[in-house]
């Protein structure tokens, strides 16, 4: 049998099961139409994703439940195309299409909740693990839009846009209560699962309560939906080191890593109390006719069990009080009105309050200000913002073929931060850095959609942002989608996006090691992509390619002597200071690659899916050479199968995430023997879900997650550079085995 005959036979077998029930003429593709996905985030209007001007994955609430997904980062890794996260045991790093920038705190992805930006305004931070703090049962679906998205949204949408859409009241139920418990198996010093010392395992629980109702108010249809939840988790207790660090540079005695250190000058041991997370969150949405209002409030406390180069630069070993706390309040009020058959107007008033605090305790003099033997360091940041967005949509022929969108988005924000160091008991604080600024942002955007014929869809647009941090930036986009008579869709697009410099990058200085730059330009990305999607019955295949150029990327760089002298003259630095850093636009990244996606269902029982991304990403160096990006997987994706046994029986689902080998985070500046790579990552989830027999209001989800790899791509411990004694890095461990049970009670 030739390959072509084999493919033909497979195609006939796949569609034969779908055609088991005869359908009237013209009706045989009704079922296929019902599998199409509709997205709103790509163009700020509802359209079928196959013609949207971007590559889009829609992840449904049903998929989240069936495949045992507990958070956004899991949804991205296990169910999306093109986006990926890596977990360093604190907030995850997120990337797309082979580009991932460690320690950016998610500020290259725009995270929306019902179209409202959740990225806070100080550092542009968005969290994607439990810290996203979106009550999970409220999620109706998640739109993952890969590629530059600044054309409609402005800053941060460089990797893409993720729009989390919440449920309507009628899809939520009147009352919902859930408890979601997970236990993590202990791992030994080599990172392998062990049944010894079960007390060294971990656990988490999330409890939530919500409700929804519809009613009539002032003659208008209205609804309100709300959910409160609380998540707490800790462990497993990982073993680190031992790492013999040596002497404290100030005391010239073995460095003190606190009361739990193994020995003076040695870091490591069993981290019993320093891997924990707590996230209380709440969300309420009110809709009355054309008016809607929503409020989200949350806090996110976490501790990280090891010293690294992103958030815990120093500190005592296993100190439970060294941690980070983010607090958010977001408010969004909207009104939309169709004025004529061709003109619609809308207004959105939005705002937020955010603050960040990191507490760090260290017993080492070299980590502290002059004169301190040990200290308590507090880093703070905050942002408050208020914005108004006005939007008009003109459907010129009142038939959807020529639609113009014009929007204006103005925002006032107050951002600031400080860095203090006090004695370990909190006395004699010294403020090393402080800034407080009021800034303005104005964005004007225009989008023209053209659908002159059913088979052709074009989209062209641009957004001009004027930001007091950097000046002006234009972000254009152009895309065409053409559908062939055989239900195949060709898409080609070009888009640009940017990330404004953060307040921290622009304003932070500490008087001793870092100065603030005179100015920074926005980071930019230009990207082109081409794709082809083919539907055959209930099956869909998409293949595509992309190429991107990233410029003006901001990195911490050495300050020149001229810059140091200027900082001393300005009083920003003490006289004689050396080894000074500052943020600078220094880096360029080139990346290109391809995507493959396939999904479908067979006999209405078996569903399958596959997403693969293969890329090559290189960061250009000053000397003309190039290096791979650290931690960024160049080959990654997922595959899934779910079988619905029908009637009262459960659904069994399995999904796997894979990522190829990738350089560790200090691979090129750690001076290691050779270039250290993290091993391939393969994570498997198996989930059984369904209704509890004889209790139709109660459903369950029982799941197991296993990580085949024992180490992540992050260097752990104070030894962040190689030496004769430590030629290879110690990599952070992984939570290998988790078993969980969730119960959901829903009335009606």
């Amino acid at each position: 049998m030739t390959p072509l005959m084999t493919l033909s036979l497979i195609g006939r077998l796949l569609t034969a099961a779908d055609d088991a029930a005869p359908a009237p003429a013209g009706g045989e593709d009704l079922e296929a139409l019902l599998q199409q996905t509709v997205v709103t985030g790509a163009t700020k209007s509802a359209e079928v994703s196959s013609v949207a001007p971007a590559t889009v994955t829609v992840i449904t609430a049903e998929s989240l439940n069936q495949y045992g997904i507990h958070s956004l980062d899991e949804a991205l890794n296990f169910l999306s195309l093109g986006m990926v996260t890596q977990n360093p045991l604190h907030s995850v790093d997120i990337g797309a299409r082979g580009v991932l920038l460690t320690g950016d705190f998610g500020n290259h992805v725009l995270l929306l909740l019902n179209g409202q930006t959740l990225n806070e305004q100080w550092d542009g931070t968005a969290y994607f693990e439990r810290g996203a703090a979106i009550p999970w049962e409220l999620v109706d679906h998640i739109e993952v839009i890969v590629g530059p998205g600044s054309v409609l949204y402005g800053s941060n949408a460089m990797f893409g846009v993720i729009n989390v859409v919440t449920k309507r009241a009628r899809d939520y139920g009147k009352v919902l209560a859930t408890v979601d418990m997970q236990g993590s198996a202990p791992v030994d010093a080599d990172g392998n699962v062990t049944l010894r010392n079960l007390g060294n395992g971990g656990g988490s629980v999330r409890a939530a309560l919500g409700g929804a109702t519809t009613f009539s108010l002032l003659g208008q249809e209205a609804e309100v939906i709300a959910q409160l939840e609380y998540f707490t988790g800790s462990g497993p207790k990982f073993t680190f080191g031992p790492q013999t660090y040596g002497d404290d540079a100030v005391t010239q005695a073995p460095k003190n890593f606190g009361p739990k250190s193994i020995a003076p000058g040695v870091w490591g041991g069993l981290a019993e109390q320093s891997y924990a997370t707590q996230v209380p969150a709440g969300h309420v949405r009110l809709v009355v006719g054309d008016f809607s209002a929503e409020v989200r409030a949350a806090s996110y406390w976490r501790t990280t069990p090891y010293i690294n180069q992103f958030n815990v630069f120093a500190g005592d070993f296993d100190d439970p009080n060294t941690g980070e706390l983010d607090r958010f309040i977001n408010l969004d009020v909207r009104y939309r009105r169709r004025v004529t058959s061709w003109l619609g107007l809308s207004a959105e008033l939005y705002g937020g309050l955010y603050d960040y605090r990191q507490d760090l305790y260290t017993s080492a003099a070299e980590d502290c200000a002059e004169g301190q033997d040990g200290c308590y360091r507090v880093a703070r940041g905050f942002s408050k913002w208020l914005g108004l967005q006005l939007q008009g949509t003109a459907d010129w022929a009142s038939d959807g073929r020529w639609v113009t969108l014009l929007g204006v988005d103005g925002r006032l924000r107050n951002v600031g931060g400080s860095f203090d160091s006090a004695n370990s008991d909190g006395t004699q604080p010294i403020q090393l850095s402080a800034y407080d600024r009021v800034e303005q942002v104005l964005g004007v955007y225009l989008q023209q959609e053209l659908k002159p014929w059913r088979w052709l869809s074009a989209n062209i647009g641009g957004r001009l942002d004027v930001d007091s941090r950097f000046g002006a930036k234009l972000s254009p986009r152009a895309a065409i989608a053409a559908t062939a008579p055989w239900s195949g869709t060709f898409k080609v697009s070009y888009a640009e996006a940017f990330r404004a410099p953060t307040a921290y990058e622009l304003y932070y200085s500490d008087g001793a090691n870092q100065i603030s730059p005179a100015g920074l330009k926005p980071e930019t990305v230009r990207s082109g992509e081409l794709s082809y999607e083919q539907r055959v019955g209930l099956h869909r295949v998409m293949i595509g390619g992309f190429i991107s150029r990233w410029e003006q990327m901001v990195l911490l760089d050495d300050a020149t002597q001229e810059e140091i002298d200027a900082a001393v003259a300005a009083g920003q630095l003490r006289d004689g200071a050396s080894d000074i850093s500052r943020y600078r636009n220094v880096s360029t990244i080139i990346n290109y690659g391809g995507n493959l996606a396939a999904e479908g269902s067979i006999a209405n029982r078996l569903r399958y899916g596959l997403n693969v991304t293969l890329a090559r990403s290189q960061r250009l160096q000053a000397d003309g050479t190039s290096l791979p990006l650290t931690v960024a997987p160049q080959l990654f994706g997922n595959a899934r199968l779910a079988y619905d046994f029908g009637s009262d029986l459960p659904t069994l689902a399995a999904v796997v995430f894979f990522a190829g080998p990738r350089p560790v985070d200090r691979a090129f500046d750690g001076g290691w023997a050779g270039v250290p790579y993290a091993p391939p990552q393969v994570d498997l989830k198996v989930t059984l879900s369904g209704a509890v027999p004889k209790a139709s209001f109660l459903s369950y989800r029982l799941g197991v997650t296993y990580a085949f790899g024992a180490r992540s791509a992050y260097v752990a411990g104070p030894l962040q550079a190689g030496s004769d004694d430590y030629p290879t890095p110690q990599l952070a461990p992984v939570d290998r085995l988790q078993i969980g049970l969730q119960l959901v009670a829903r009335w009606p």
Partner: protein
Amino acid sequence: MCAFAAGADEATVPAQLQASLLARAASYDRNFGKRAEGKAKIFIVTSGTPASAQFFGQLRQALAQENAVGGLPHEEVEVPFTGAAALAAKVKAERPAVVFVAVGLPETDVKAAVAALSGVDVLTATANPAHVAAGISLGFDLVSGKPRLLVNLKQAQKQSVAFGADLLRLAQVVDP
């Protein structure tokens, strides 16, 4: 339709997809061919509001791009709503195969229209999922970003709409 990248309550099934769904779902009504008598006349009932007028334009344009509805050639007619009795009289006189209720019609008017059309041989459809519970036979909803068919089976039977099991397994049956 503009949706401000909105919540699930604000996103709707795009008109082109509604038209395609209607065109195919009509084939599953065993009485459609007999009712249409060779050409499917589709009444699009508008309420006089701007939203209704826009919806009419979009749906008419989308249906014009469908080669067939229920396997038959078709034509669309705008019918401004002037009362349930007037609508029922027009339906009885002109015998359309489909009456599509556009957005913007208040629920009280929908219920009145449903009552007036009870016993009349016609397939009623709507883009507002709430109207299916109010008595419209076929509706289109968006759940988790995917279109869903809603069928009010009792009302459909009263209007001689005979949806078979093949369609009902794809749809959510609404029982008010």
